[in-house]
């Protein structure tokens, strides 16, 4: 455990991301540094336009940095070829987005198996692992259903199963509780938390402090800069919260 916590799975080093150029340039991130270790869930909070989603996108290799570096398991994403980067996205990182992104013409099991199949896994083995992953989030019985045959909460669980399938060491979640009711949203956070407790590194982007409270550390962004950060210490007297 100690060893797990010392080697960051994700590392952002002085990352700047500028969209556009000249007078229309938008500084989405300005010199952000962040490390996330295995077994650690970090929440990123901030108002709209503070750079939260950009941070998540560069962390997962979905967007590139303007300056600075993003390392996933010690590998600088900027040094990878397009196909190697795609492989990192499929194998190392799992994504859960607010708008689900399930493919409507595929069943739940097919959606979850897709990244494994794209990665060259056999259809049979990929499906087996997909059903395993669906079972892990408690929706095995939805395997044969299509997204439009599921509730929002069920779809989100399937999206999480897809993010967690295989041996993903990094889970990136952007407002994963979206428009879910508070209890279903909490179930989604419990799943994310459990996966992190089992050894993944997690980043959770949210504007709700109640959700961020599931994280070990909370980072506040404003105008692309980290303005504040709080950690939960297991040594803290939990009863103190009640005094």
């Amino acid at each position, binding site marked *: 455990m100690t060893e797990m916590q010392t080697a960051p799975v994700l590392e952002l080093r002085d990352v700047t991301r500028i969209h556009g150029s000249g007078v229309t340039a938008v500084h989405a991130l300005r010199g952000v540094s962040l490390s996330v270790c295995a077994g650690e869930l970090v929440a990123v909070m901030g*108002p709209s336009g503070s750079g939260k989603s950009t941070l998540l996108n560069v962390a997962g290799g979905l967007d590139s940095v303007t300056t600075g570096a993003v390392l996933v398991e010690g590998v600088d994403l900027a040094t990878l070829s397009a196909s190697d980067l795609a492989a990192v996205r499929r194998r190392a990182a799992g994504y859960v987005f607010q708008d689900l992104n399930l493919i409507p013409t595929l069943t739940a099991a097919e959606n979850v198996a897709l990244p494994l199949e794209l990665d060259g896994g056999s259809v049979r083995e990929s499906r087996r692992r997909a059903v395993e992953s669906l079972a892990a989030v408690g929706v095995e019985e939805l395997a044969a259903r299509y997204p439009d045959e599921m509730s929002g909460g069920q779809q989100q669980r399937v999206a999480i199963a897809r993010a967690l399938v295989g041996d993903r060491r990094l889970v990136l979640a952007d407002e994963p509780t979206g428009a879910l009711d508070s209890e279903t949203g909490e179930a989604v956070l*419990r799943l994310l*938390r459990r996966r992190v407790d089992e050894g993944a590194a997690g980043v959770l982007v949210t504007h*709700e*402090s*109640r959700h*961020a*409270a*599931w*994280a070990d550390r*909370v980072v*506040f962004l*404003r105008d692309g800069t980290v*303005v*504040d950060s*709080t950690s*939960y210490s297991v040594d*803290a007297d*939990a*009863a*103190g*919260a*009640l005094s």
Partner: protein
Amino acid sequence: MAIRQGLLALLDEGPAYGYQLKAAFEERTGGTWPLNIGQVYTTLARAERDGLVAQLETDDDGRVVYEITAAGRREVAQWFHEPVRREAAPRDELAIKLAVAVTAPDVDVTSIVQTQRGETMRTLQQLTRLKRDADEDADLAWLLVLDRLIFDAEAEARWLDHCESRLARKAGEKAVRRPATGRSPRAAQGSAR
């Protein structure tokens, strides 16, 4: 706090002596509001004076067992039936602190907001940790209490975010207005509209 009604509701489930009531109250609420035994007996004595409970017997160990009366049952039923009224404007140290700070010269209000938000966030994390460790079935009553505390803390955090945005917007407006005397291009642009 509704200790009297809480104890009466527990007595409505069956006769009990003071220590049993104290233990049951704390178990249901997860020890969030610990009672001292003196407080329990004072409350029972007043309820007895008001005809809501009666002494039933003294057990072998000399403990007085209380039972609820018909009037006590009516008070419990009424308590469950009526909504709890919010205090009109309870004194709130944080609101007072920010209201004074924002009008005082040379106080960094943004820093006060950030410090407080860190504290509120830590409280939320601690409460969430307690929730994670609780048993969903065995600790249902305690989980409801925790949720209440979590939603309260969340409301404070949201209010602090709101204050921070409002302060940032005000600071932005001031920054635009200030150079207006020197005819800044942005101010001129604004007045041209």
